[in-house]
Structure formats: C-alpha cells, structure tokens
C-alpha cells in the first residue's frame, strides 16, 4: 500500500497508478462525530482541485468534502449510502468516499503524514 497524502481540508488520498482513492481523515471523522449520511458526486464528473464535490453529514452538522486533485470521478463508495458509519469506523479503509483519475500533475501542497499531524496539532 502506498503512503497516504493529506490536505489541509482533512481529506486523505492514496494513489493507485493514476487513480487517487480519497476519503476524510481520522481527525475529521472524530471532529464530525457519528456520520449519518454521505452525498457522493456523480461518476464521470470532471472536478477541479479544491472544489466541493461531496457532503458528509453527522448527527449535528453537514460538512463539504473537497476534491484534493483535478481529474474525473471514476468510482464512488456506494456502500456508504447504506452504512455511512464506515466513515467513523474505518476512515482510511472501508470508509473511502470516491476515486478520481488525475489529469496532469498532483497539487504541490499535499502533505505527508507527519506534516498533516503537525498541521492538526497546530489547530488545537
């Protein structure tokens, strides 16, 4: 398994060739609390890095999920429709949100795990 990369909007991504598997971080799911609904983008949609393309709803509030990279949505995690609590249970595993096939180079502001953890600590 390749190393996870992170955004300051609390998404993670894992590259599988040209395709990035994307979800929200453990920190994000903890902050949100119990996830009750996930609104996923349409497969085939062309998205731009930084664009809000999904919504995650906890008991208390709704939050946007952003595309960390530019490309095309090639798959979404339909299992979250029936069991959104996977986002809490396995945020970087079975709780993934969508896959984006990258067009062009990845943004240069993606963080590695250490840098992301330092960023989260700086928010506290």
């Amino acid at each position, binding site marked *: 398994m390749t190393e996870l990369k992170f955004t300051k909007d609390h998404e993670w991504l894992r590259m599988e060739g040209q395709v990035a598997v994307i979800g929200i971080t453990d920190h994000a799911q903890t902050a949100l*609390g*119990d996830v*009750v*609904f996930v*609104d996923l983008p349409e497969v085939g949609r062309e998205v731009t890095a930084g664009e809000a393309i999904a919504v995650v*709803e*906890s*008991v*208390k509030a*709704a939050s946007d999920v952003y595309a960390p990279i530019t490309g095309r949505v090639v798959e979404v995690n339909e299992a979250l429709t029936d069991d959104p609590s996977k986002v809490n249970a396995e945020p970087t595993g079975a709780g993934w949100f969508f896959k984006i096939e990258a067009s062009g180079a990845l943004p240069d502001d993606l963080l590695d795990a250490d840098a992301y953890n330092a960023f989260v600590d700086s928010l506290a």
Partner: protein
Amino acid sequence: MADSDTLLETPLAALHKELGVRMVPFAGYSMPVQYPAGIMAEHLHCRSAAALFDVSHMGQAELVGEGAAAALEQLTPADVQALKPGRQRYGLLLNEAGGIVDDFMVANLGDRLFLVVNASRKQVDLPLIESVLPSGVKLRPLPDRALLALQGPAVASLVPTDLTFMGIAPITIAGIEVIASRSGYTGEDGLEISVPAEQAEALARALLAMPGVMPAGLGARDSLRLEAGLCLYGNDLDETTTPVEANLVWSMGKRRRMAWDFRGAERVREQLDNGAPRLRVGLRPEGRQPARAHTQIRAGGEVVGEITSGGFGPSVGAPVAMGYVARPHAADGTALDLIVRDKALPARVAPMPFQPHRYAR
C-alpha cells in the same frame, strides 16, 4: 477563540473537563456539546437507560408575594392560578402582538412560584416580568443555583420519588437538598434538579456514580428534544411566532381562553377563530439525508415555508425535522420538497412526536 474569555461557565465546568468534554459557546455560556461517547451513543443511552445533562445555563427565578400568579398571567396564557402546590406547567410569555417572547416552566412551590426560562432569553424575560409586578410581588433571580437534568427510563429506579409527571418537590438526593421536578426535554421520564451551585458538582458526581448513568451534552439534548417534537426557542419559536402557529395552544388555560386577559390575546384569539396563516409541523424526509434549520420548503415549486429544526434522529433511525408551512400544506401526509443544496429532497408532513413520549403520568 478570542471571545471564549467572555463566556460564562457553569458550576460543573471542572467536572466537564475531567470527563473529556467538547465545549461550545451557547447563549453566552461555554457548554458541553458532547462527551467522548459521542452524540449518537449519548442519545441512545438516554432512551435506553439514563443520561445526565448540565443545563445550568438556564435561568431560574422565584416569584414571591400575594398575587404572584395573577401578575404573571398578564404575560402568559397559561393557567398559573390553577396550578396546585407541587405542580409544574409549561407556558409561553407573549408580546403585545401575540408573539412568543419565551417558553418557560412555572411551578407552584406552596409559598412561591418557581420559574425556569431559557438561557438565551433570561435578560429579556426577567425585566419583562419585573415590569408588570404589583408592589407586593417580588421577582428573585436565582443565579446561585445550578440545574441538572437526569433523563431516561432508568431514572425512576435510580432516584425513586413520589413525584408524577410535572410534579415538583424539595427532595434529598445523595444527602443534598434539591428541588426536583419530574419533567424534561427528551421525551423520556426523568428529573430536572435545581441545586445550590456549590453542591452541583457533588450531586453530579453522585448521579454519575449510579449504575448506567452517562453524561450527555447539548448535541444529544437537541436530537432528543427534536425526536420528542419539543420546541427550541430561537429555532422553532421567536417573537414573530404565535401560540397558534407554533401548535402550542394546549399550553393555554381554558379559563384564559374565555377571559382573553393576557398580553397579545387579540391576535391569538383572531388566529384561533380564523386560522393561522402558517403552522408548525413535523417533517420526514425520504431516505437518510437530513434537512437542517433554514432549509426552504416548497410545494410544486412555490415556497411555502422553512425548516426551523432538523437533523438525524438516532432513535427514529431516519432524518426528522420541524418547521413552519402555510396552512394549506400542513395536513399530515402532505408531500413537500425540501431544498437541500439546490436539490429537492422529497418529504412528508408527519405527526409529532417522532419518538413516543414515555412520561410517568
């Protein structure tokens, strides 16, 4: 975060920190929103066992003197004079236009009336009440008392009392003298406990030490009261909503509806006779997607109302909401669209409560 310096704390602030709570600003107070168990677990635990809430931000006061009940009745259509000693009642304070200034609890403690008002409204309510009092009646705010709510089906066996639903009495819990009422804001059986601030932490620790009692925050309190169909002032009620629109006519005394001798009576009477232009209703969205407060409600493309409270009901296992719709769309079963992120989410008007009340009547 700069304004956190100016937030008030309840007498249980130290205990909350020890329990690992997440705090949020609410009505000028730093209040627990959830403990490590999380809103869902706290909510479900309250429905299955017992949960302890710190609601010390709420305003407590006493009204003392000959004619206190009659004086208060100038501002509320609740029948306060008929309230027997040891009984509590839900009421509304109204403005001249029949709008709701606050919703509150009033209890007859024999020698005085005991009031509990919303935290966000106490600076409005107390001067308002003061302004109508005759010389013999005194309003005494009780800022030195904390308020705890112990809610859930296990409460009756954990803290046995002689109280029935909406009964109130001075009792002793864990050696501490309190004023307890059999009431709450969750739809469950339970107690609301007024305690001197300096003994609040000892009482809370004693209650949390009882088997199966879990601390719960404002997050669970909100989802519990929403499932129970209970209004949150500032969301579901404000100075523009009337008792008729809010579907709270039941809180008005029969005698008061004969005499029409309270502030705002004219508008309330007119709406009772002719119907209110809008009504508070329950709404059940299709599927799992919640519709939150301020979501627009449409019928056939026309805007007919707005959601005032909405979220996911953990016990219902589905999204639930309440809001105001134009009267022609208020009947149970009416199909409506909720506009969530520019998309129409189908929903139906549904009876409340969404979760049956389990009061000890």
